[in-house]
């Protein structure tokens, strides 16, 4: 199956509603379409439901109503291994295992392809090891491969988290508030590396951000969410050029 090229959106949400508590809606009637091969940034003030939206898109949360599909397949009907081959998810705090090395963390990206017995003994196939090394190399962190994650800096952890997701070989990567607590120069460097990796592997990125400068640099497509609803008309990079954009958010 070649998902790109035939016009099927990478991710589509149709009239999605979500609440953690009964009828206390965090997402209200959200519809959006993410084109394949493009990078989409979702912006919005904090507490507006960006994390929830990304978790619904990544099938970690099930919507109360509405449907989310990736390349035409309804995500909540996919079995976990199939889903992991389509969607990679990087949470806001990155979700790295602190006591394990950078390389071990990256190798976890291949768990969906490895049997339990081999995984128990940490016997990763040679080609997975090669791929993990390559992913660390691509994110510019290979020289810290044996360091435990708790000794890495914030920026280094971001690189490890992306490398893990790259090893998963997903078609789509969803990253929550990625690079948001890094200084601008460092964030920009990491995002450039991600764009390069995404082009090479043909991955569609969806990220939430709150800094307009980074969103403009990284996003081909910028969407805005406010009070759990999509901001209508806010669908293009060009809107960010106008000074009003910052007021909108």
């Amino acid at each position: 199956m070649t998902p790109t090229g035939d016009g099927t959106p990478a991710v589509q949400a149709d009239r999605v509603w979500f609440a953690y508590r009964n009828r206390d809606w965090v997402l209200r009637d959200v519809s959006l379409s993410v084109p394949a091969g493009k990078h989409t940034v979702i912006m919005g003030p904090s507490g507006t439901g960006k994390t929830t939206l990304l978790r619904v898109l990544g099938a970690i949360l099930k919507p109360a109503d509405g449907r989310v599909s990736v390349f035409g397949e309804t995500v909540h009907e996919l079995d976990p291994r199939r889903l992991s081959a389509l969607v990679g998810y990087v949470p806001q705090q990155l979700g790295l295992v602190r006591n394990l090395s950078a390389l071990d963390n990256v190798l976890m990206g291949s768990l969906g392809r490895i049997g339990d017995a081999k995984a128990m003994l940490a016997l990763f196939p040679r080609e997975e090891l090669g791929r993990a090394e390559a992913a660390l190399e691509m994110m510019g962190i290979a020289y810290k491969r044996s360091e435990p994650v708790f000794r890495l800096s914030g920026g280094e952890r971001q690189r490890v988290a992306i490398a893990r997701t790259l090893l998963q070989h997903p078609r789509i990567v969803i990253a929550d508030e990625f690079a948001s607590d890094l200084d601008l120069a460092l964030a920009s460097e990491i995002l450039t590396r991600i764009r390069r990796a995404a082009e090479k592997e043909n991955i569609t990125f969806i990220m939430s951000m709150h800094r307009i400068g980074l969103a403009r640099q990284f996003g081909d497509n910028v969407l805005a969410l406010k009070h759990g609803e999509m901001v209508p008309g806010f669908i293009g990079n060009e809107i960010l050029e106008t000074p009003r954009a910052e007021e909108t958010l």
Partner: protein
Amino acid sequence: MRLSLALPLTTGLFLLAVLAHLGFFDLERLARGMRNLGILGSEMLPPDVGILPTVGAALWETVEMSFAGTLLGFLASLPLSILSTRRLFSSWISGIARFIAAGIRTIPVLLWAIIFVILVGLGPLAGTLGIAAYTVGYLAKIYADLFEGTDPEIMEAVRSTGASKLQLVRFVILPEAANAVLAQVLFMLEYNIRASSVLGFVGAGGLGFVIQIYLQSLDYQRLATILLLVLVIVLVMDGISAWLRKHFLLSAQAS
């Protein structure tokens, strides 16, 4: 704030009431106790070290029992605590596993030793199994709570790579909890060394048998030697576990 005064006051009154009920304010009795303590102390001195070669074997048996029992109990507690983790298994499975652990924990270690003496006969095997059983009950509970505290974001992130439950245990739950898992085993080992020195009372091997004999024959100088020996072992164990902590616990202070 009212609460800050009310709580210590109530606790204090409660403690006084309970102590009175237990005869703590019977001054005549307390004075007699102090006199007896003096007599006991003088009868214990000096400790009779002549018995060291004789009790050496019993001492070694105690150490063996506590090491083997702790390790056995630790190994058995891992699967039980993983099954008790509600984040991995349905409330049905975790409920049953927790119930089993609670049941094992209800029985004190001395009673376990008696049960195993009945099952496998007199000797250190019964003691070892008794210690193992008690250890399972304790560690399974501690570990289950520990595993449930695993950062949910890490679980989600690794689960989204397509990892199975077993893989989550291997790569997320155990490494994240590694420090506390090791610390608790060491604590349990220290506890078991002390506990195993009395298991001989019920015929389950080790120093306890010798202690019982010297107690019954009022041979307090020899008893003192044994108590000192237990103290030495506990101190040595403290040293070993301090060393293990220093060299194997990761100093993960990062967020």
